[in-house]
């Protein structure tokens, strides 16, 4: 007799399996985030930096200092502080940032979309150019195009991002005037479209304000290309290496012997088989970009999460650091899980 949800009060097997997996995933996510919080919290507290100074500054009197210390809860023992913190986090309250005087949640809602927008465009550029370049290099192994790809990757690996960013600004903004300067928008466009997602390209498109969209694009294109170039370096090298391996497989030789077109051999047979590995590489690149690139953010005055966390760390603004770390950590974990999931979709052996 087939089991149904109504007989015996049991869930159907696929649903139970899904729920079980979902619970396990949520549990592992919670444990990882808790561990992340604990380590960050401890590092924050044992660092030889005094967060009270970030509030009262160099000139605060001892009374002002003591009052601020108490207000921050720093007079409590460490385990108590951590417990209080967890209790608040469980209620979705990451506390108030010392540096910005606002709730950390609001700050992250402001800075993370800036990074998300930049990283997404960056990784798109990286994939759009990196994958074809890697494939081209593999099928032309040892020829000039392979050398060019190698050089592109080498430069991408070894060039300081700071220098490349400034040169990019000088040439494309300073001299040619092709792109917008530092910042997400020209000042005249600030605040013209309502913030829905916090990503200006998306918000301006939603609002149908193409002037703002164009201006935002002119500002993001250079930093995104820069980040894209660094992903490209990694993605193209990995694509090349995966493709070389795939192209040397016996089934490829068989396909060629059968007279299959080169296009079909490369894309249908070889490329299909590297999709899984490539996806992991791309997801990792994306996750790296989502952590925020501090130097890129500094050069381009891009108010992203990398600069936010670094600034907070230097001033021992631990609420901000912890909040930022949780967000970045969670994104990292989710992307890893997504990568695992897609792995299973594309590779039947992994199911």
């Amino acid at each position: 007799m087939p089991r149904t949800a109504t007989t015996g009060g049991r869930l159907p097997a696929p649903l139970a399996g899904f729920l079980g997996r979902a619970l396990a995933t949520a549990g592992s996510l919670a444990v990882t985030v808790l561990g992340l919080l604990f380590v960050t919290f401890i590092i924050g507290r044992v660092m030889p930096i005094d967060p009270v100074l970030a509030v009262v500054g160099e000139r605060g009197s001892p009374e002002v200092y003591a009052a601020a210390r108490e207000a921050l809860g720093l007079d409590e023992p460490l385990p108590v502080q951590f417990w209080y913190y967890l209790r608040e986090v469980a209620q979705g309250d990451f506390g108030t940032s010392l540096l910005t005087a606002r709730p950390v949640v609001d700050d992250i809602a402001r800075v993370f979309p800036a990074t998300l927008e930049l990283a997404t465009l960056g990784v798109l550029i990286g994939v759009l150019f990196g994958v074809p370049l890697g494939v081209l290099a593999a099928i032309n192994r040892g020829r000039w195009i392979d050398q060019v790809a190698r050089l592109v990757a080498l430069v991408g690996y070894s060039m300081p991002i700071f220098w490349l960013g400034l040169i990019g600004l000088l040439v494309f903004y300073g001299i040619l005037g092709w792109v917008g300067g530092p910042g997400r928008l020209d000042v005249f466009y600030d605040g013209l479209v309502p913030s829905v997602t916090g990503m200006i390209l998306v918000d301006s498109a939603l609002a149908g304000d193409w002037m703002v969209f164009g201006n935002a694009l002119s500002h993001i294109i250079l930093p995104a290309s820069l980040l894209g170039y660094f992903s490209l370096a990694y993605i193209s090298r990995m694509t090349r290496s995966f493709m070389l391996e795939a192209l040397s497989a016996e089934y490829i030789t068989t396909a060629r012997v059968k007279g299959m077109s080169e296009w079909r051999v490369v894309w249908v047979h070889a490329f299909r088989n590297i999709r899984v590995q490539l996806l992991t590489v791309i997801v990792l690149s994306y996750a790296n970009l989502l952590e925020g690139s501090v130097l890129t953010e500094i050069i381009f005055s891009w108010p992203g999460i990398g600069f936010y966390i670094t600034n907070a760390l230097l001033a021992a603004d631990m609420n901000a650091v912890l909040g930022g770390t949780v967000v970045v950590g969670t994104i990292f974990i989710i992307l890893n899980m997504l990568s695992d999931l897609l792995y299973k979709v594309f590779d039947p052996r992994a199911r």
Partner: protein
Amino acid sequence: MSAFSRLMASAALGAAVLAAGLPAAMAETPPNMLVIANRIDDITSLDPAESFEFSGADVIRNMYLKLVNLDPMDMSAGYQPEIAESWDVSEDGRTVTFNIRSGLSFASGNPVTADDVVYSLRRAVLLNKTPSFILTQFGFTAENVEETITGADGTVSITTDKPYAISFVLNCLTATIGAIVDSKLVMEHEADGDMGNTWLKTNSAGGGAYTLAAWQPNENVTLNANPGFYKGEPAMKRVIVRHVQESASQRLMLERGDIDVARNLNPEDIAGISGEEGIRIDEELGGQLMYLSFNQDNPELAKPEVREAMKYLIDYAGMADSFLKGQWAVQQNFLPLTFLGAVDENPFSLDIEKAKALLAEAGVPEGFTIEAGVREAQERIEIAQSFQNALAQVGIKLDITVGTAAQILGRYRARDLDVYVGTWGPDYPDPHTNASTFAWNPDNSVEAGATGILAWRNAWDPGALTAQVDAAVIENDTEKRVEMYHEIQAEFRDTSPFAILFQQARQTAVRDNVENLNLGDAISSAAYWPVTK
């Protein structure tokens, strides 16, 4: 294969076409808008009772009125009437009564009254935030504000614990904490008895030339002109201060015309941009001092001859002419030039032989080892290295510890550093601000924990200087007061464990159509309302 080549070529072409088709940056900012690039990541609050950072002071100066204020077009004139149209001092010299000007209003439309003044000053004392000492040094406390700060019939009276020099009292009231807030508006936003502090951190409630449109941390501050400003609506209807961390980025933005003012150009970029068409370099002296200090808990550094020797082991001119070029000028006294009582005598210069003789006299001809704490700022590290080179020539080994601001400052405040490379900026435009930290330390004991006083941080008891500083601040004869600061500084220069090195020389690059921009000189902050383009 050829298909791949075509793909790549078209992708590259597409990108180029796309980039070329994008709107290029505008060549000029609108005529009624002032756009400034500055590092504003130091702002943590815009409540005048709490704000104590340079960038915050710039913003607040433009949003609030004060009882007395400085005129950006004539800074040397000192404090001028603003909300107070006149004032009287009682016979015992302890009570100042201000006559409140009628007809002034806040940006909200509420009239500026004596009640607002009383509320603002009391609030600053009661909130007890970092800058509160500027007011509490007059003896105001949470317990006595009801009696010491009072208002009636268009007048406000403040009663101090001693008969301080009136110039001292009024100078302090021109500081950020002297800003008068719209009490009705602030009280509407009070939460949990915080006197509106949480709300006012990110909002404005003043009657100054501008109101706060937005402050996005690490991104920008936007100010809108206040049409009801008592001096007339400013020509710049909107002022945007944009956070741009990098000097090179600021320079490019100025050259492209995307900003009007670049405030943080390094010497290389200033040199590079000088003489470019359409750009001018404005120079003014700032209030910041750069100094080296020597902890008197270290027995070697506590010897008077060693202290003196240190001052001959610094290449003042060499540094000012090389890596500090244009940004810092030699000044060996604790009052910045343009301050009341400032002197420009700079008797020390690098003299290795003289230092050697002094060290021999102190009984340490073979030298010793000391540690310097330096914040990770390029110029400070270079100053420490220059000092290290000079010390090496007399056998003294200087270990340089570089750390974040919070790390190094924490150790300095705990008297844990032999040598500190520091900067100091005045808290309010009166000589007492620096005298009371460099040359005044009534209790040098560890228990006193006077971490705010530089002399204490260096475990130095200034002896008779403490009493001299106390005397100068209650001297009402200004000429005599000036003379007293001259004497204090001469003694300090020769005997203290501080080697004052340089005074900030601010170089600001501006588009040449920007007129009347005053950034506050050594004694105040930026004023945007007189600016025209």
